[in-house]
């Protein structure tokens, strides 16, 4: 069983590792179904995502992309089936351990989910503060990440004073700062212009090139075509296609 706490094998933004394709999937879904009352959001979905894979989840609105991601970061629980993250069965993760599981992942949202009362710096630092890191380490790490996403000098800016693209870059920096092994992104470019979307995609690709696993839910065909990665198609809560190439 893997520990839920970050370990030294975490892909680091500062310490690039050589691309390594392991056959062992880090994300596994076995016949997962998710129902909300009488409505079924996902039906019998099985999916493997290997370590250091970059996967797009695509499909029309209501296909179940966001639901699938929410199941992975345990905002929801599956009605049926099993989900394994790095070998850990999510059904067996006790409630008090969920925060530790989430620290192994970075999550990026379409609406950024930044805390408006906190500065860009504080929003990113929050992850490390929650993990109990030392202030010196937090300062070094946060400044490095903000520089990396091109927001040097904007540390003290509050999210409402930043553009959408800048806010999403703060969100990406926040997702990366806990040195996660997996990044889940739910429509990360949905509310961004083309240029900002490209920056965000490049940041995610950068994380992937350093050994991280990325799962992006999007219906942005242009983004998918540009990245040329594995694409999983969802429709009506079911997987209708899985392979490389351009989204339909």
């Amino acid at each position, binding site marked *: 069983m893997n520990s839920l706490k970050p370990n030294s094998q975490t892909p680091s933004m500062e310490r690039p590792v050589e691309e390594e394709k392991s056959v062992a999937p880090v994300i596994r879904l076995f016949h997962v179904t998710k129902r909300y009352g009488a409505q079924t959001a996902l039906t019998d979905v099985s999916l493997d995502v290997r370590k250091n894979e970059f996967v797009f989840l695509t499909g029309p609105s209501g296909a179940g992309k966001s639901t699938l991601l929410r199941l992975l970061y345990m905002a929801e629980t599956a009605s049926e089936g099993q989900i394994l993250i790095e070998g850990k069965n999510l059904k067996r993760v006790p409630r008090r351990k969920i*925060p530790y599981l989430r620290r192994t992942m970075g999550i990026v949202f379409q609406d950024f989910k930044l805390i408006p009362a906190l500065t860009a710096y504080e929003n990113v630092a929050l992850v490390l503060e929650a993990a*109990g890191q030392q202030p010196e380490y937090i300062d070094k790490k946060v400044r490095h990440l903000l520089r990396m996403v091109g927001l040097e000098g904007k540390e003290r800016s509050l999210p409402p004073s930043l553009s959408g693209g800048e806010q999403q870059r703060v969100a990406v920096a926040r997702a990366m700062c806990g040195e996660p092994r997996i990044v889940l992104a739910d429509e990360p470019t949905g509310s961004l212009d083309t240029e900002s979307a490209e920056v965000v995609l490049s940041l995610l690709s950068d994380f992937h090139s350093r050994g991280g696993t990325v799962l992006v839910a999007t219906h942005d065909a242009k983004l998918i075509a540009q990245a040329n990665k594995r694409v999983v198609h969802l429709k009506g809560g079911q997987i209708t296609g899985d392979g490389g190439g351009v989204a339909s």
Partner: protein
Amino acid sequence: MRLRFHFRRAVRDIRANAFLHTLAVVTICLVFVLAGSFALVFVNVRELIRSQHENVRVMAYLAPGLGKDGQARIARELGRVPGVRSVSFISRDQALEILAAELDGQADLLKGLKSNPLPDAFELVADAREGDSEAMAETATRIQAVPGVTEVNYGQAWLDRFAFFIELSRMIAIALACLLVVASVSITSNTIRLVLYNRRAEIHVMRLVGATEMFIRAPFYMEGALQGLVGSVLALGILFAGYEGVVKGADTGFFLGGFTPSFLPLSVCAPGLLVSAFVGWMGCYLSFRQFKDV
């Protein structure tokens, strides 16, 4: 736990929701002023009664014909009874003189007596033991058991009334304290609930980035405890100012027969401050219980 870090967060949150917190602190302060006023009156009334009835006068009447030796023996034995502070002999002649003096203008009534009907007696001063009538009754029984003593009189009726008053005041104080604690918990709980509601999105984000419940709740717990503490410190200040005004402004010594009221002792203030902090914390804890899915 990094207390300083969470304390800074708590202070920042208080600043961000200054109006709500000020409102809560003022309300808690008023509640504690009410509680403190009652405590102040209760403590001083008890002290006043105690100072007026610190000692109980007990009369131990003697059998006739004991002689000087017998009286001296009884005096020694009475002096050894626990709770007895002093023993003084009153002969039957002295007792008659005292009675005549007390009858004042009606002393002629005694002239018709063929002989002195009063017995020799010992006047004892016994410890009232804070109005504990049972303890006093026990002392009286011991006095009565001394050979040669025929009757004991110590004013049991007023001592019982005194004990009843003290007990009643204590019960009222406890009931009022419980009521005010519930009121304070409710005030803090409602304030924190409003803050939680205002910040539900932020709390949701914190959960998503891997913050533990303790990390999320710690500053709120501190805010609750601080609200209670600040409210009660302010209340103490107001009470002290009021006390100073009353004691120095009015000649209380004249009105209360030389008794000067005192402010709440440290043994009341210190636990009061701790209770207020606990009450604030409890209010916050209850808010989180009712608002689990924030």
